[in-house]
């Protein structure tokens, strides 16, 4: 029998027990690791420092400053000094440390031990690896097959690009294939020169963009976003108008004043329809046309043959009714846009991959660029301006031996060559490129790659293509290396960014530039003597001397506003602040870059390096290339785009687009970017396909349901997003997911649309185009 008193005691004990177990629970529940991490970071006084460098998560070329705590990088922010981004960053810029610290980085050179694609490797030493590669290269040269070294290069510019080109030339191969270019081939024929242009958006009043997704994925995304900000809210200026011609309600379309959905590939016709109204209503810049263009009106050549001019062609064929029929754009819209474009100058027409990634892409671009000439907006503020290069000290000439001379005389292979079975590569170098993932019709690419006897990858990660490599010579990540960053697309003023190691390399990796120099030296002979520098850093220092000596431009700094510098320079001032090159170099490295004022051409003929010395509506140079061309085929005109897959079988157009998170696919190994990949579609970590709600209803597809997308090249499955911003017969999908390799985060997440993109090439420039595939969609 228990006494009440005792009972109370037990109650007391029980209570204590409850409290005690609470304490125990606390112990069980709390994670000591996390606590200790907090404790460490909070108790020890940490040393904080900032290092500037240049981002390389995309080709945008933004300046960054990395925060180090006890020399450990902990955060990336935008460098406030750097003129491209002025202290700001995009999502990928922020996730850079997830590249540096990525758990799937390669920590040493690897030699393949499994079969190709099996992803089995053994670590080897650098000496061993380099010897292996050098032997292959020597063999090839001995066999006089130097041209069968193919260097695929996805991200080089500035000195790295020069270095690779030099290596290939000295070695004796013309096959340096670069993909990282949204090449303006039509522009280069119309204006002459390389076609490298920039759009001076911040000063424009009317921006007409044809598939130029400048708020998501064009050129330098932050630069363009900043320009957009200025178009919107700028002091003492009217709010510029933006019209986005796009087959999808892209973010650019959403932020534009008007979205014009057009039938895919008919942008050229739309542009010519606008030209019609502008000519008809005489809204064009008569002075500019008369002085600076060729082929606007009918003309007679030296032989007395009469040729039709641009106006004649436009007035004959591109009247609004006809254009409306082709493009699907209502007549009122054509007229309204044309009037706006003609009147609200400076107005500027932009062409992006959306307009050019078709078989008729060259001509679409030509038609669009013709609009810039119509309103006389070339070579002026608020218009199309040249993209100048910074002054670099040239290197000594390349010395060619017989082998390299012979090799270089061989015909350069094209991207189209990749899809034929006689792709003539014995040795393939892969630098910042992943064709098995990024190129159309990935299955065919694998077939071709499989057959190449020796493949070397410089990637920092095992990506899809590197799985087929024989040797991987891992590069530093961009946070561990020296590199210059120039020629950022579309910037419009000369600039050099200094990418420098913010930490010592974490692993046993090497700068690809250094590796190439070492290989060249090891190959001996003229190949070796073409390389006077022992490593990439000394090459950089050498090249920058001219920048210092020229006295133009200035190291980026707090004190100088861009506009101030431009003002000074225009008046002949030299913003010189360093007493010696070493001092200049020191400043450059510390501040992270150099800029100079934009160079508007002093006279327009300077800008037009064509045979007529003028802006050419009539493409002389194309005539020279292919003799017997009809006049109207040498003027900007509309050719119907070709599609793969018959309409009956494949009723929908299939569009893909780059996002500002995954950047084609490189971002897919970073948690941050995967988690926010579809932040505007509430989608994380997975692919999706945008379908118009009515189209979906016809197909019986619900939101977020899995659908199958089938083209003549293959079939993929993705989650449907019913999106009122999708055109009824166009479905769109982001690129970048669907990796089968590339580390734990990227692998098996989402799908890769490239698997079903049929290969297709531009009819004139022969570059690969991506938007020509038709598909059918159904519920799975």
């Amino acid at each position, binding site marked *: 029998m228990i006494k009440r008193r005792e009972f109370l005691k037990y109650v007391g004990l029980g209570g204590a027990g409850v409290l005690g177990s609470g304490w125990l629970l606390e112990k069980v529940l709390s994670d000591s690791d996390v606590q200790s991490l907090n404790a460490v*970071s909070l108790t020890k006084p940490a040393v904080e420092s900032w290092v500037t460098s240049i981002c390389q998560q995309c080709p945008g070329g933004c300046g960054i400053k990395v925060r180090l705590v006890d020399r450990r990088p902990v*955060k990336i922010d935008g460098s406030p000094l750097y003129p491209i981004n002025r202290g700001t960053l995009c999502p990928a810029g922020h996730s850079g440390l997830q590249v540096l610290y990525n758990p799937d980085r390669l920590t040493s050179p690897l030699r393949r031990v499994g079969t190709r694609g099996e992803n089995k490797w053994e670590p080897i030493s650098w000496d061993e690896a380099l010897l292996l590669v050098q032997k292959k290269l020597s063999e090839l040269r001995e066999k006089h097959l130097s041209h069968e070294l193919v260097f695929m290069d996805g991200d080089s510019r500035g000195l790295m690009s020069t270095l690779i080109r030099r290596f290939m030339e000295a070695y004796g191969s013309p096959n340096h294939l670069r993909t990282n270019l949204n090449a303006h081939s039509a522009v280069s024929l119309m204006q002459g020169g390389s076609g490298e242009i920039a759009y001076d958006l911040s000063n424009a009043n009317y921006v007409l963009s044809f598939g130029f997704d400048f708020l998501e994925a064009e050129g330098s995304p932050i630069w363009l976003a900043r320009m957009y900000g200025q178009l919107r809210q700028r002091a003492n200026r009217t709010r510029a108008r933006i019209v986005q011609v796009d087959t999808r309600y892209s973010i650019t379309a959403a932020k534009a004043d008007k979205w014009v959905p057009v039938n895919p590939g008919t942008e050229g016709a739309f542009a010519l329809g606008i030209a019609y109204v502008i000519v008809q209503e005489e809204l064009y810049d008569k002075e500019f046309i008369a002085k600076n263009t060729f082929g606007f009106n009918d003309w007679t050549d030296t032989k007395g043959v009469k040729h039709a001019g641009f106006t004649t062609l436009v007035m004959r064929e591109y009247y609004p009714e006809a254009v409306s029929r082709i493009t699907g754009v209502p007549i009122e819209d054509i007229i309204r846009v044309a009037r706006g474009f003609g009147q609200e100058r400076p107005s500027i027409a932009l062409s992006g991959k959306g307009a050019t990634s078709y078989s008729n892409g060259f001509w679409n671009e030509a038609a669009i660029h013709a609009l810039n000439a119509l309103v006389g907006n070339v070579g002026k503020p608020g218009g199309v301006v040249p993209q100048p290069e910074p002054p670099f000290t040239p290197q000594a000439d390349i010395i060619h031996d017989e082998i390299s001379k012979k090799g270089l005389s061989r015909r350069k292979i094209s991207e189209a060559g990749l899809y034929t079975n006689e792709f003539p590569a014995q040795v393939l170098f892969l630098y910042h490129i992943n064709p098995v993932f990024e190129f159309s019709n990935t299955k065919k690419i694998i077939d071709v790659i499989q057959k190449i006897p020796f493949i070397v990858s410089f990637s920092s990660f095992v990506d899809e293509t590197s799985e087929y490599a024989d040797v991987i010579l891992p590069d530093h990540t961009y946070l561990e290396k020296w590199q210059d960053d120039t020629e950022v697309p579309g910037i419009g003023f000369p600039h050099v960014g200094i990418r420098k190691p913010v930490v010592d390399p974490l692993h046993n990796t090497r700068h690809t530039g250094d590796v190439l120099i070492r290989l060249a030296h090891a190959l001996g002979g003229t190949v070796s003597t073409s390389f006077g520098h022992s490593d990439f850093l000394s090459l950089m220092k050498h090249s920058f001397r001219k920048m210092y000596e020229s006295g133009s431009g200035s190291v980026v700094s707090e004190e100088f506003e861009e506009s101030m510098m431009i003002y000074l320079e225009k008046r002949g001032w030299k913003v010189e602040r360093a007493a010696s090159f070493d001092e200049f170099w020191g400043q450059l490295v510390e501040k992270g870059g150099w800029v100079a004022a934009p160079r508007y051409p002093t006279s327009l003929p300077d800008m037009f390096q064509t045979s007529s010395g003028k802006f050419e509506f009539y493409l002389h140079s194309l005539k020279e290339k292919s003799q017997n061309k009809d006049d109207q085929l040498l003027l900007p005109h509309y050719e119907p785009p070709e599609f793969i897959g018959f309409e009956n079988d494949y009723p929908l157009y299939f569009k893909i687009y780059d996002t500002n998170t995954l950047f084609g696919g490189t971002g897919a190994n970073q948690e941050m*970017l995967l988690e926010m990949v579809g932040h505007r579609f509430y989608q994380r970590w997975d692919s999706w396909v945008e379908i118009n709600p009515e189209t979906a209803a016809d197909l019986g597809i619900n939101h977020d349901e899995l659908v199958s997308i089938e083209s003549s090249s293959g079939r993929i499955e993705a989650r449907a997003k019913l999106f009122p911003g999708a055109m009824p017969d166009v479905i769109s999908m982001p690129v970048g997911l669907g990796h089968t390799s590339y580390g734990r985060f990227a692998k098996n997440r989402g799908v890769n649309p490239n698997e079903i993109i049929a290969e297709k090439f531009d009819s004139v420039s022969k570059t690969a185009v991506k938007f020509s595939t038709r598909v059918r969609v159904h519920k799975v």
Partner: protein
Amino acid sequence: MARWGMVVDLDMCTGCGACIAACKEENNVAYVSPEEAEKGRAISWMQMVNFVEGEFPNVHIKYMPRPCMHCDNPPCIKVCPVHATFKDEEGIVGQIYERCIGCRYCMSACPYTVKYFNWFEPEWTESTIASMNPDVSLRKKGVVEKCTFCHHRLQKARDKARAKGMEVVDGDYTTACADTCPTQAISFGDLDDPNSNTARLSKSKRAFRMLEDLGTEPKVFYLSEGEKNV
């Protein structure tokens, strides 16, 4: 004393999401597995909210970056049983992770759905643990977290100001999201300071707040997009 607030100019915002990323990096916000994210357990102090109107081709979508509104009259703190979420004297609505009992009442009460719960012990991968911001404490399983207006930056600014014997004023501190915004669409500052750009913008004719009629008095303002006409 400052009353910190934020203005987001939707006319300038390009919906790029840099603010989302900057916030995650700055504040040591954990990543959850893709499977968990699919279930709606991802944590994103700043999030993009889409307002869709109309049908093809007359569709309009408004994208609004959404941090915590730091309401002056916050429904979330009224319901917390343990004072684990509170409004400080400068108007910032904060969380005390070490005190929160994880009842998620504040989550249910926030009309803006800005509070996030740690459904599991956060698992830090090598790539994320190495880049932790030492200024921001890590959250553990079972507690609620949300945007703090980068409170740790305020603390630093306060320390600096105090060393000089001054108070923190507009411009002394800004948030990670405002810092990084490419178009400078986000402006952060003292809403009570007549010289503050943020305060000026918050009184602009274009200014509005989310769910204004609830009377929560958010300190995050939005400036409407410009007239669209072509």
